[in-house]
């Protein structure tokens, strides 16, 4: 067999700059942010007159009224949401993968992912509140309520409702990550081998495929854990209030006009980081324990499953997931067109477009900030990710053993370190450098969180591309650039655009970076929606939540339909 053609790599060796620039850009923010926050946590903040290190703020933190309750709610909602989302995701793969329910989920995945956390939480609140749609559906016939009851299932003291919302929102993310990872496992033939050995499909999934899948999505799971333990916007909307979760409490301290509270906030932020690190350690221990306990079960030869009920439950879960998400969108739509809607009516008595008209007039600025920041951040992220991946391919071709995959995991750090643990430190540093409140700083702060998601979604597909196609193209057009632009990039257009859309939706959802790094000068639809949700008219809030939902949805739809349209004559490029 002939060897594949060799490219003159010297011409494109500047690719080596991509991982360096990317890592410096990322690590500088995190290291500076963490060091700054840690020094403040130990009482050192010369700019406001605290010139000596002390542990007084830690003592104040642990003795702060409601500290224990706050910590418990944080752990229940954060760790509970992560474990449940993970278990349900595996459950869905084991029992529903590739049945008709899965096809429904598959079709709903992009819209599910596109719904921002805050919009989802607002809609969920409107569904499950005492005057929400669910109770309206049941009242007065089944409940007897003619006025909303004075109890609430939301904002409970233990963070259960927050946990539930996060579970529903994180399952699609974990499914997406799992689907990417499954591309690296020969699922079809593994199923064939397992079944030819006499195992039922569900048993093959549980014993063969899921144990191979877990290590490949471990990082994504840790990201979910870090996010769930430190989320602010979602906790403001559906989390406990008195006391709130730790992240919300810390956020309030950071915004307190009394500067001394910022030191308390820094101690709290550091505690959240410790909580995340120890929870990741706990997950590792749990993983080792599960491996130990189930090792003999894996090979006990039990071929038949007694999980018929589980299959039904799994299919029900798919329906619930899709149903709640549709319900969330519908209730927001109904509220946004409502003029008068009394309890327990199932639908409004009178409708109006008044709030949309007002909303369109008022939301221009936030929409512009959202789109310009999101598109710039996701565009830069795609360029950096492609640059890093191309460098990786180049290094592998040159036979260099120190390939960048070993160090590029550092890119995921912004997902594993709670935002609140380092963003305040970054903000303080930017203030000192007089770089706070600048649009480019805002884009950079969004890029920190956009880039890991772009890497996570694009990396596996990009790496699985058959590089020999580009090699052949280079021999034909004699230019690596031409081959890249005319062959490789068009072939990868679909995953590139999809990952950019994921990046954009991540940018749209950013709350803390926009407030901290934007220094309050850049309102986005997310900051506006969260701020309004705490006390404004449901009709106005719904309009803002829908804008927050529609913006990334449009980008997702474009990412799906542009390649489909562009390659409409190419059967091999259709899904």
């Amino acid at each position: 067999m002939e060897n594949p053609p060799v490219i003159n790599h010297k011409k494109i060796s500047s690719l080596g700059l991509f991982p360096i620039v990317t890592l410096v850009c990322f690590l500088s923010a995190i290291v500076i942010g963490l060091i700054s926050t840690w020094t403040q946590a130990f009482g050192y903040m010369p700019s406001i007159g605290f010139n000596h290190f002390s542990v007084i703020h830690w003592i104040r933190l642990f003795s702060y009224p409601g500290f224990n309750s706050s910590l418990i709610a944080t752990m229940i909602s954060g760790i509970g949401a992560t474990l449940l989302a993970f278990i349900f995701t595996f459950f869905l793969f084991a029992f529903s993968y590739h049945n008709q329910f899965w096809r429904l989920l598959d079709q709903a995945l992009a819209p599910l992912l596109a719904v921002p956390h805050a919009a989802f939480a607002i809609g969920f609140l409107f569904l499950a509140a005492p005057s929400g749609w669910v109770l309206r559906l049941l009242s007065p016939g089944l409940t007897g309520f003619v006025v909303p009851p004075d109890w609430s299932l939301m904002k409970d003291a233990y963070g259960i409702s927050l946990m539930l919302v996060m579970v529903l929102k994180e399952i699609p993310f974990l499914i997406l990550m799992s689907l990417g990872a499954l591309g690296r496992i020969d699922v079809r033939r593994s199923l064939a081998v397992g079944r030819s050995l006499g195992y039922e499909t569900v048993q093959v999934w549980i014993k063969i495929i899921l144990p191979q899948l877990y290590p490949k999505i471990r990082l994504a799971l840790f990201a979910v854990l870090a996010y769930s333990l430190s989320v602010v916007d979602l906790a403001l909307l559906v989390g406990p209030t008195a006391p709130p979760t730790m992240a919300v409490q810390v956020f309030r301290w950071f915004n307190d006009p009394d500067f001394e509270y910022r030191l308390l906030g820094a101690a709290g932020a550091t505690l959240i980081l410790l909580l995340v690190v120890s929870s990741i350690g706990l997950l590792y221990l749990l993983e080792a324990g599960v491996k130990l306990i189930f090792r003999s079960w894996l090979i006990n030869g039990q071929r038949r499953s007694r999980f018929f009920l589980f299959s039904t439950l799994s299919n029900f879960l798919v329906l619930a997931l899709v149903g709640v998400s549709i319900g969330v969108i519908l209730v927001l739509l109904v509220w946004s067109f409502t003029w008068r809607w009394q309890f327990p009516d199932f639908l409004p008595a009178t409708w109006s477009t008044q709030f949309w008209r007002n909303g369109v007039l008022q939301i221009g600025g936030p929409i512009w900030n959202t789109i310009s920041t999101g598109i710039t951040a996701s565009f830069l992220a795609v360029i950096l990710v492609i640059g890093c991946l191309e460098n990786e391919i180049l290094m592998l071709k040159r036979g260099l053993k120190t390939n960048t995959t070993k160090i590029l995991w550092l890119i995921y750090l912004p997902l594993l370190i709670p935002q609140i643990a380092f963003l305040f430190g970054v903000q303080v540093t930017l203030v000192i450098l007089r770089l706070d409140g600048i649009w480019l700083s805002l884009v950079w702060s969004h890029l920190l969180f956009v880039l890991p998601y772009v890497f996570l979604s694009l990396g596996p597909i990009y790496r699985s591309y058959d590089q020999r196609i580009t090699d052949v193209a280079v021999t034909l057009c004699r230019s690596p650039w031409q081959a890249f632009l005319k062959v490789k990039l068009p072939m990868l257009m679909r995953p590139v655009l999809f990952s950019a859309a994921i990046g954009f939706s991540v940018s749209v959802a950013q709350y803390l970076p926009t407030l901290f790094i934007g220094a309050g000068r850049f309102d986005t639809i997310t900051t506006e929606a969260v701020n309004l949700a705490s006390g404004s008219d449901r009709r106005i809030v719904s309009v803002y939540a829908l804008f927050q939902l529609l913006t990334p949805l449009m980008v997702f739809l474009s990412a799906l339909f542009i390649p489909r349209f562009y390659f409409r004559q190419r059967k091999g490029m259709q899904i």
Partner: protein
Amino acid sequence: MLKLETVQIYIDGRPLFSSLSLEIKPGEIASIMGPSGCGKSTLLSAICGNLADVFVLSGDVSLNERTILALPMEKRRIGILFQDDLLFPHMNIAENLAFALPSEMEKPEKKEKIREALMKAGLSGFEKRDPETLSGGQRARVSLLRSLLAEPEAILLDEPFSKLDQELKDQIRSFVFETIRSMDIPALLVSHDHRDCPQGQIINLANQGE
């Protein structure tokens, strides 16, 4: 005996090949040859019960006098070997083999079976080894052992030697054929390389075209 009676596979209403009938006796290894895309692997998928929804199968397949087409894959008792060994990376060699043994078997008996199997394959002492640390030939042998430990009534070989280099191919081919013959079960091999086929029935699927 593995028996195919007037088997045809259709895609979009078109047959992949004309009606195929075949009888493979215990201990016999029949071969199906043909160029890529002629339907060789699809035929194996149909026999083992893993045919994709886009295909339609007509005719009958029986194994030891029982019709198997209505049975799900896991109940057909047909082992399959692919060109990739598909060893499970989260299990060591002994665990990969134990996976194929029946649940009723006691642990010491399982251990003994695995030890014996590995010895026959020249892999004694490999029980605790990670599949990743084995050579291509060793992995291929473990993969065959795993299929056979499940005590299939027939075995299908989907170009199992195509990724091996020539020297290794000769070794593994002898090992696979001898082991299958010693098990006295029918086997059907598909390949596009006539050197892979043992003596016996050889059907060229390309000649079976419309």
